[in-house]
């Protein structure tokens, strides 16, 4: 029984290994902590910038490894994260507003490797230090807000169509109930509303004496609202993270209503929290000039209007139904109007028909910008600006009436983009840079010691076959590192643990095969046939046992979050690569060594 190991398999294995090696190499080079300086608003970085940065670093007593132009930016590399942080501060303070200064990791990988997409593994926060936030988006509040909109709109539609109704009630935050005098009105209204409000479902609540209709959001509409809210939150958070100046930051959706924000390298939580945790939303409200503020404040509330206070505690009465919310703002900048007074120019996008219509109808009245902030589950609303509407407003308008400093603040608030829904931090962790370094070191030592021990024991126990298994194991590690680098999953400490575990578990396939070969030899089977049968019989066992572990790994990946996911990924990838190396790769070597000659006797082990 002779087994021919086809040539193409050697080639395929060779190519796989070479590719694995190439894509694993960048990890040997690592990355430099760097500060990236780029020009904004048309400013370009040039030789002058370089000299300025050089002088700034010198005065701060910091030493850069190199300062070089890279594409359109200037990249200053440092030997450690601590210097990098100090340098960023020094440069940011020294350069003017037209430069953006950000933390970055500069690859040391040679260009030709970068060109084919080879890059080092992405390190998790526990390995490189930084801040992790998990933020929860209060999506339901958007639904409530939407229903409040319908609460105002539905009566309007009915009035226009001259359909009489008795009352409209909020049954709960997601349901409205409209009551009618008689069945005809109800039927006519239902037909009309169904045509006008396509996002709502209308259901008549049957009873003898009441004629009412229940309005609810359709599941699809609800889904869309949730989706859009989360997407808008992601975009806004990304913009804010950019203001923090972290290039490698991650802003990612997690589950139905959460967002993960990871800021590698950053250490100043208070600052980060201030920028991100500024869980503010903006809304534009029209002044209610039919009622007086004094009247409302003395205890005669007006439905649909509310008193808002500005920072000097001056009250204004505004209609609570917003004509525009912060999501529509795409830009805001400070400038001067024709008289030379400070002004904020605002640019809008999206559906602003309500906004332009309302402002057209209300020229001469005042419009307020209300800033809604949620902090520790408490909502505070403050009026940040109130100004007269001079003309119908389109998608570009100016707000005036404050000092230059106030104008700048307002522009910043508007520009940073408002979050569509209140967002709160539900999980936070900060890892110091030295701790990250130590975790990397411990992870590496664990891999080295684990691998070393396994290599020694396998070689001792199975001699030549053991060394073959060891080669397979090393090939496995290289392939695994290459895959993790290539896929770009984040390497965390648990992920390293997953790699270490895979090392121990990967030898199982070879152990199964070798033990089987030993058994066959004991039974008196010829050496070549023993090898053949060892590989053959062990194969289905190997598949069975690996598949079950893979099932568990996939479950871990599906259900786990964050670091557990990292562990699951390395575990699963490790199983897949070990199947290739322990079975096919080791077989190839065995064939290379034993295949070509006549064997009288082989020994698995000493």
């Amino acid at each position: 029984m002779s087994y021919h190991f086809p040539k193409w398999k050697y080639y395929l294995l060779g190519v796989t290994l070479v590719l694995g090696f190439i894509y694993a190499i960048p990890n040997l080079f690592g990355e430099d902590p760097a500060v990236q300086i780029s020009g904004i608003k048309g400013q370009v970085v040039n030789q002058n910038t370089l000299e300025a940065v050089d002088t700034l670093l010198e005065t701060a007593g910091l030493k850069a490894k190199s300062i070089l132009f890279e594409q359109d930016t200037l990249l200053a590399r440092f030997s450690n994260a601590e210097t990098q942080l100090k340098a960023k501060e020094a440069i940011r303070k020294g350069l003017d507003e037209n430069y953006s200064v950000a933390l970055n990791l500069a690859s040391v990988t040679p260009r030709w490797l970068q060109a084919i997409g080879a890059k080092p593994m992405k390190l998790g926060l526990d390995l490189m230090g930084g801040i992790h936030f998990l933020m929860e988006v209060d999506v339901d509040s958007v639904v409530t807000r939407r229903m409040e909109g319908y609460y105002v709109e539905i009566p309007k539609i009915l009035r226009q169509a001259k359909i009489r109704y008795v009352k409209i009630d909020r049954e709960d935050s997601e349901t409205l109930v409209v009551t009618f005098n008689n069945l005809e009105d109800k039927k006519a209204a239902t037909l009309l509303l169904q045509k006008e409000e396509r996002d709502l479902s209308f259901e008549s609540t049957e009873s003898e004496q009441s004629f009412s209709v229940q309005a609810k959001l359709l599941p699809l509409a609800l889904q869309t609202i949730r989706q859009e809210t989360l997407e808008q939150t992601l975009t806004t958070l990304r913009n804010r993270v950019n203001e923090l100046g972290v290039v490698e930051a991650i802003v990612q959706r997690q589950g139905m209503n959460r967002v993960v924000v990871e800021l590698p390298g950053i250490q100043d939580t208070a600052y980060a929290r201030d920028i991100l945790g500024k869980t503010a939303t903006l809304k534009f409200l029209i002044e209610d000039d039919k009622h007086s503020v004094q009247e409302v404040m003395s205890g005669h509330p007006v439905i649909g209007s509310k008193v808002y206070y500005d920072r000097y505690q001056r009250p204004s009465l505004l209609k609570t139904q917003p004509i525009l919310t912060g999501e529509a703002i795409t830009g805001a900048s400070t400038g001067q109007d024709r008289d030379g007074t400070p002004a904020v120019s605002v640019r809008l996008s999206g559906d602003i028909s309500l906004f332009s219509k309302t402002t057209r109808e209300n020229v001469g009245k005042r419009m307020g910008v209300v800033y809604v902030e949620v902090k520790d589950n408490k909502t505070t609303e403050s009026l940040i600006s109130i100004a007269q509407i001079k003309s119908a407003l389109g998608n570009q308008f100016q707000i005036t009436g404050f000092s230059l400093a106030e104008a700048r603040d307002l522009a910043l608030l508007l520009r940073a983009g408002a979050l569509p829904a209140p967002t709160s931090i539900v999980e936070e962790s900060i890892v110091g840079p030295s701790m990250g370094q130590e975790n990397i070191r411990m992870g590496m030592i664990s891999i080295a010691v684990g691998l070393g021990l396994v290599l020694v024991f396998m070689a001792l126990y199975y001699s030549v076959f053991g060394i073959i298994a060891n080669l397979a194991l090393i090939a496995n590690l290289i392939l695994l590192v290459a895959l993790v680098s290539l896929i770009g999953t984040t390497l965390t400490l648990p992920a390293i643990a997953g790699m270490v575990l895979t090392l121990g578990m990967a030898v199982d396939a070879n152990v199964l095969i070798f033990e089987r070969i030993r058994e066959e030899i004991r039974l008196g089977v010829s050496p070549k046939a023993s090898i053949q049968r060892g590989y053959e019989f062990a194969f289905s066992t190997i598949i069975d046992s690996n598949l079950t572990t893979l099932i568990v790994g996939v479950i871990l990946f599906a259900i786990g979050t964050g670091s557990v996911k990292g562990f699951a990924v390395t575990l699963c990838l490790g199983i897949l690569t070990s199947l290739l190396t322990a079975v096919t790769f080791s077989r190839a070597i065995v064939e290379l060594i034993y295949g070509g000659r006549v064997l009288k006797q082989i020994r698995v082990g000493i």
Partner: protein
Amino acid sequence: MEFFKKETRIDFMGIRFYTGIVIVVLWIISIGLLWTKGLNFGLDFTGGTQVEARFQTEVSPVDIRMQLEKEGFQGVRVQHYGSTQDILIRSKGESVVIDSVKDKAEPTSEQRLSTHIKKVLLDHYPKVEIRRTEFVGSEVGSELVERGIIAVIVAVFGTMLYIIFRFEYRLAISAALGLVHDAFLIMGVFSLFGFEFDLAALASVLAVLGYSLNDTIVVFDRVRENFRKVRKGSPVEVMNLSINQTLSRTLMTSWMTLLVVLALLFFGGETLFGFSMAFFLGIIIGTFSSIYVSGAVALWLGLSRDDLLPKAKVEFEGP
């Protein structure tokens, strides 16, 4: 070097009645411990705040706690972490009542706790290095517990389905029982010694389930093969034969995995302790359970030759 020069003929199944008693007793102890003492859940599950700090010199946790209590932090746990210079300060969930934290201006919620603790530490020990702070909201924690339980159940059923498909339902049930056994005993030991059970430990328990199943499957695979080859043997004899034939593989693989886990346990650091410990226990418990839980239960459920033969056609091709 070989553990066993010749094929061993140990009568594993002969003592299965006694090991059965031992297992039942261990189960009762584990469940009792989990019931009364419970698990020392990590921050991931309980929610709360945790600050890890490194001091220039040795410090006593009691001193730090007194300092914190003087500043108004009640019910904070302070302990050494890794070395005598490292301190871990932790408040779990809602357990902290703050009487008077210095700057009243800022509302003191659980979220801001770490900031305050950091401030107090830096005030008293200017050279302290804050290595890690963590805050987990309580809702996130309880959600994780839920997900963890789901994960374990799905894992057990998922692998059971696979075994039913590849082998037979009796083997699936006994393998699943073996997995439940492993999970319970690991958690029992964690409860007994008060080891912290965090998210990584849970992930590790799940991975152990996969790993321990390997042993079971290797034995089952051999049982299936032997039923076909050894015409005369009774199920008990075949089970014994199969366990003996795979014994040196079982020991070698367990030993190799144990080596790497020991490397993790000794060099992986405090963060990975729960993970490594759970896996370490899992290897030992799992090796034992694949013989005495999975193997014995399969016999007890009445596994016979006919159950495995028809499906023998489902076979993967060799490499």
